[in-house]
């Protein structure tokens, strides 16, 4: 494991229309770690993810990815996000008019990388042979598998997953969570998963609780 943390939050604050969502949040995420963040509604989980993704910028404090300060300027933030981050959403967000293969290829295209990893990733998430299918032919679990493939296809340093199983039934959720974990480890990526679900959080290496006091580790139930 590398000594440099993959993501470093130092004293990050964010206020939305006079409501302080995050205040003075600091934390270091080690490389290769799979961390789950839990917390009550409205405590700022999504805000934190948006800040990390560069979709929003903190009012104060710094966010470093691989030691580099996350730029505020949109284009630079976009470039960083495109190269180093992967996303998994609750609502899947698979483009409806593209085939599965095309959807998975998107990050490769945007990063001008060779496309040969896209079918590999589809196979890895168990969708081999369905490359030319369209999203509407898939179930929710299958859609999330596509999303996982897309999130990892360009070998990002860090995966951000926002309630990845929120739209899925329990059995499917379990499968998807296992897949996320397997693939993150297989691709040597770090990951932050935001979730309400204790079950989901339990698949992570570490669980953090977000509250107004900051991020506090929670012991895993089945800690070995």
């Amino acid at each position, binding site marked *: 494991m590398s000594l440099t943390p993959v993501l470093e939050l130092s004293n990050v604050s964010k206020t939305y229309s006079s409501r302080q969502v995050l205040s003075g949040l600091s934390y270091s995420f080690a490389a290769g770690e799979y961390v789950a963040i839990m917390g009550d509604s409205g405590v700022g989980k999504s805000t934190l993810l948006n800040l990390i993704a560069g979709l929003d910028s903190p009012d104060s404090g710094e966010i470093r990815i691989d030691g580099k300060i996350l730029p505020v300027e*949109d284009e630079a933030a976009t470039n960083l996000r495109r190269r180093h981050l992967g996303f998994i959403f609750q609502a899947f*967000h698979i483009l409806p008019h593209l085939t599965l293969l095309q959807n998975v290829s998107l990050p490769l295209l*945007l990063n*001008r990388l060779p496309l040969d990893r896209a079918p590999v990733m589809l196979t890895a998430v168990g969708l081999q042979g369905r490359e030319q299918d369209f999203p509407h032919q898939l179930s929710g679990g299958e859609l999330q598998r596509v999303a996982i493939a897309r999130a990892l296809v360009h070998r990002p340093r860090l995966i951000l997953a926002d309630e990845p199983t929120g739209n899925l039934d329990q059995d499917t959720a379990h499968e998807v969570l296992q897949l996320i974990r397997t693939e993150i480890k297989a691709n040597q990526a770090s990951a932050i998963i935001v979730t309400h679900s204790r079950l989901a959080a339990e698949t992570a290496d570490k669980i953090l609780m977000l509250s107004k006091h900051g991020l506090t580790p929670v012991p895993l139930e089945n800690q070995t």
Partner: protein
Amino acid sequence: MNPVSLTRWLLLGEWCSHRLQSVVAVLAIMLGVALGFTIHLINTAAVSEFSAATRSLSGTSDLTVRAVQSTFDESLYPTLMQHEGVAQASPVLEITAGVPAKAKSMHNPVFKILGLDVFRATAVTPDLLGVPAEDRQMDILASDAVFLSPAAMEWLSVKQGDSIEVSAGAKRITLRVAGGLTRAHAGQRIAVMDIGAAQWHFDQLGQLSRIELKLRQGVDRDTFRATLSKELGASYLLTESEDDDERAHNMSRAYRVNLNILALVALFTGAFLIFSSQVLSTIRRRSQLALLRVLGMTRRQILRQLLLESGMLGVLGSLLGLALGYLLAATALYFFGADLGAGFFPGLEPRLHPDPLAALFYFLLGTGVTLSGSLLPAWEAAHAHPAPALKSGSEYTVLAALRAPRLAAACLLTGVIFAGLPPVDDLPVFGYLAIVLLLIGSMAALPYLCELFFSTLSRALNPNRSSVLYTLAITRLSNASGLAAIALGGVLVSFSLMVAMAIMVASFRISVDDWLARVLPADLYLHPTIHQDMRGFIPDEQQIIASQPGIERIDFIRSIPLTFDPARSNITLLARPIDRNDPGLTLPLTEDRLPPGDIPPDAIPIWVSEAMVDLYGFKTGKRVTLPFADPEQTFIVAGIWRDYGRIFGAIQMQLSDYRRLTGDDHASDAALWVKEGAAIDTVISALQALPFGDTLEIMETGRVRAVALKQFDRSFVITYLLELVAIGVGLMGVAASFSAQTLTRIREFGMLRHIGLSRRQIHRMLTLEGGLLAGFGIITGFLAGTAISLILIFVVNPQSFHWTMQLHMPWTWLLLMALAVLGAAALTAFAASRHAASGNVIRAVREDW
């Protein structure tokens, strides 16, 4: 290759999944470009033909001397020839000759015959010299010889050696085609003959139409012009050949500008449709675009992607539009002629010229309009925050960004101010701008009006008493008025234009009908085959006509063109018996008139048309001199009359005064009252049996009116066509925005289906929504349309055609139109909602709840 294929995937994906929206956008652009291009092509064809026909015939002349009347005494010729400073003077007699053989197939078949002194013309107008047969050089002087331009030969289907019969008033003349005018302008339908022969055959002895001057070397043209002008006095005019061209250009300008404005309105409507379809498209794809941003697409890439998308639609639409425009122009020219029936370019047979430059212009215009229509939504989409945009329901924030309250107020206010401004250079520029501003302003104000209207409705709603569907529809419209307003824009634009045109045309038509009833009091009207030629009926012929049995009363009318201002078109002087104590019996006078007692004994009364007031400042009671009469003789404007026939101005005076002043005893037309008990048919047959009976055009008053009204209706063919297109485009807009919106609302329908609404109920709810929306669009469209019609009737028409009319509201017609649009909109909404209520909506709920 990577970004290119990404772009292509996204484009194809979008187009394939939203074929209807894409097709509608392409159609809108296509129609806009097609209309603009059609009108441009027709205009160019007509105007190039028209200007070829009226192109200066003055050759290299330095100065042209003409009189305010169409001819003047030839004694001026030797005077000018011997004038110091004049190197060469070429006398010209210009005859408008009729072609009786063509009278059946066309209205007023005339062409120009120039009587020239070939020896004088050589130096001034070398292009107007006839080319005789090799062995018959003397034909250039022969009194029966005429030389025809290629266009005239083609028109008359004759060749060298053939004979042609032409007419002047009640007289017919046979001439021999002795050769061609090889150097005449293309399309110029003219003939040349010896001036002596022309004076003789066309009863114009001693008369000339103009004298072309070549000045001696070293003589300053402006100084000479000033000096000569002073010497010749007010009854002569000096012009240079550029003046002629400008005058010809001015003649058709009002007409051309009006048509071009209509074309621009079509393009404007198209632009608005593109704008609204782009807004809806970006709203619908909001989360997708946000995803692409999250995955790392930059703003610029998104903007480029969206602009490329609409640009491709614009290119396709523009290309189709050009093809359609060409086709339409060809069809319209074939069926209606160059003036589309308006009667501005009589006798022209214009050909369509392929015009690559104009095609490029309209192509760029169409594409540019498309791009600018999508620029705002694309900009908004590229700059939206991706994080919130990923969540559903965020579309409402977009609409807030598109609100422009200040724009609406500014446009409406400026529009009102502009409507009150005078014309610029005789064109109602501000009137048209006021219309455009009114349209933009009312569209910008639409979201507010919409919100106001539907929230009022929704407050007035009693949920316990109203049906649930009605409640849902009203609530939705009230809460999402921004979205509703976008769907409404198309209806507003097209319906307001329809209303405006309907009111304008109805008002005009009723005014014309009333006017015709007043200007045509007699039973019969007759004139020679050719209108307003110089010869008309000579006194002997008048005598013969008047002595026919069965005639109670006959009024002879002399109608001659007068040039008041060389830069403007001729006005018409009409001399006829007028009762000075009750001129209203013969003239359609406005209220603006002198009491008969106020006409001073030393002044001759004249009655002028409204155009004379606007163009030459004639006012009731004003004492004026007329350039054809002695400057000592004063005339007094005794009244203003309405004239829908002559937009360049007309003056009426008593025939007796005219004859006394000019000695001209010819007559151009006659109005006949048939004796009680005498059969009109008998009188007509008696007239037709006269020796010159076959040169007479005899019309019963009823027929004159019918013909005039038919002409009138024909002249609005283009207007009706544009109306149909506008409403078609408007409905397509409704269809597009409804189907787009129903797609964005797919989850909403899914939820409604879940909570127990049947598929049919969703259909009905959407149809109701469509109907309510269209109803509101119709109300606002009616208001805007009425305002536009007021501008057309009271600003644009008086300023460009110099006539006033009364406002008449065609209520039945308006009601029918409103019902038709309402029905069409509801049907459209219904059709668009079919998809929305289909089975997969239930699944859609799972997507994001």
